[in-house]
């Protein structure tokens, strides 16, 4: 483990009723790295995200964020430490406006009393407006999230991630259901975000993964099958076997 490693998973297993969703998985992500994770359905990609964010407790193994053991913390504590997660199905708060969704995600004291006394000051407003600009939703700021299109909801959710100011972003299938143009826009957005933060993207769309232009990890049956550039993994015989063989 180098000093640049931000996320460290070693020998992690998750067993549900005898089914090994994760099987001695080891994965290291560096600071500022953009990483794509691909794999067939049931490879354990979402379970891996659940383990990192505290939704699922691993049956065995080590999960560390810098030097902190994540297996001892709950979702809220992990999120506050600087790990943000975008879900596969975009979940934004429909009853609130786009602006309010971002305001809720903005890094600020999270206790009930702090929320009660919260006043939206200039600096916070400026950050929200910047993010609105970045995700291209400035014109929709006062609309309820319920009336956004699918792509816009995905971006709003990425925007909410940015507001949390995380060091590590976990992004689950960001371009599912997006048009080609939206997909391109999203790839550019994620490339821009990486560098200052680490980003882990789980995705099925290989064209999109190619556009991300980063190291790719292939997962299968709960462990890592192959790692390298998109061209390397696409020519790895074991990967071909898994994707086309059976």
């Amino acid at each position: 483990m180098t000093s640049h490693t931000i996320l460290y998973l070693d020998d992690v297993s998750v067993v549900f009723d005898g089914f090994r969703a994760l099987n001695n998985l080891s994965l290291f992500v560096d600071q500022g790295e953009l990483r794509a994770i691909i794999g067939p359905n049931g490879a354990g990609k979402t379970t891996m995200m659940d383990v990192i964010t505290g939704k699922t407790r691993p049956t065995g193994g080590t999960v560390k964020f810098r030097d902190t053991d994540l297996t001892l913390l709950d979702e809220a504590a992990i999120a506050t430490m600087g790990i943000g997660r975008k879900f596969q199905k975009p979940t934004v708060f429909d009853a609130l406006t786009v602006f309010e969704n971002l305001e809720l995600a903005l890094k600020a004291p999270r206790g009930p009393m702090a929320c009660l006394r919260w006043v939206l000051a200039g600096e916070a407003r400026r950050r929200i407006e910047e993010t609105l600009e970045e995700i291209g939703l400035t014109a929709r700021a006062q609309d309820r999230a319920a009336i956004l299109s699918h792509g816009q909801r995905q971006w709003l959710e990425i925007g909410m991630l940015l507001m949390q100011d995380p060091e590590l972003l976990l992004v689950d299938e960001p371009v599912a259901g997006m048009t080609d143009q939206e997909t391109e826009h999203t790839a550019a957005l994620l490339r821009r975000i990486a560098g200052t933060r680490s980003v882990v993207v789980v995705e099925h769309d290989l064209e999109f993964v190619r556009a991300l232009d980063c190291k790719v990890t292939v997962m299968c049956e709960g462990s890592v099958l192959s790692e390298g550039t998109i061209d390397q993994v696409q020519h790895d015989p074991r990967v071909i076997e898994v994707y086309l063989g059976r």
Partner: protein
Amino acid sequence: MSATTVTLPATPRVTLRLVLWGAVLALALIPLLNQLPESSALHVGDFIVSVTGKWITYAILALAIDLAWGYTGILSLGHGAFFALGGYAMGMHLMRLIGPRGAYGHPVLPDFMVFLGYQELPWYWLGFNFFPYAFLMALFIPGLLALIVGYLAFRSRITGVYLSILTQALTYALMLAFFRNDMGFGGNNGFTDFKELLGMALNTPLARAMLFYASLVALVGSYWVCQRVSISKLGRVLLAIRDAESRVRFLGYSTTQVKLFVFVLSAVLAGLAGALYVPQVGIINPGEFSPGNSIEAVIWVAVGGRGTLIGAVLGAFSVNALKTWLTTAAPDLWLFALGGLFVAVTLFLPRGLVGLFSRKVQK
């Protein structure tokens, strides 16, 4: 704050505020009109004063339920328990004030204790002869119970129908406990025969008017507190928890903490309502804990319109007005009407009575 005000056009908000203050003013007139000679056309009978005073306390209970259910999605079917506990705390004070005027004439012990052969006052009755202490207990005990139950339930992530069943069981268990004579709370007779409060003889027009105004002030205060919460960022967090709790957790909010805060605040408001209710109706017994009461209070909120404060208040007044009229006109029909009302509102008016008016305001 600014973000919320922008979403609503200015005119309906101003109109709403005018209507609200108008309604408060109209209510405030009731005890005054009661003072007019009976021959006057504007005279309002004693019955109206006492029944409206009672409804005001119900409206506070409705606000408490709305904050938990309408805003945060915590459907408590046991809020009547917090109301009743507040009522019992006030009842204990009123019992202590009877002093030697009881039927047995004992200087300290209330009648039922003499009857049951108590030699001295149980320790938990000490201090209740002081009004400030009793009043604080009326808020503190419901709050403490909500803190314990809420902590255990929310920490274990008990939500939805399971939480409803849990709270329902809680109020039922308390009802059975309070029915027992050896609890020291008067068993199934509860407390009654109150004489005075804060030096005022109860059952006089003055006491009635004072309790009425105290309730009205408490209602306005509770409304203000709930509104403060709902327009703050906390209010937005509550709505977010109601709609997608796990997502809020992944944003770094401890939803357990936030829900606990709301649940305790809600229980304290319910306790306040109970404490104001008991001196007005002159009796408190374990029947107040019955699950039906809690469910009825939830129906007020559903009928008025959950998730809006004005809806909760409107619901409490309108359903109880209907109840007062119907239980006199056709007592057997009341429960059918209540059930039918709930079904009808759920099917045809999911946003309650308020939804009828505000359809144009909120698209």
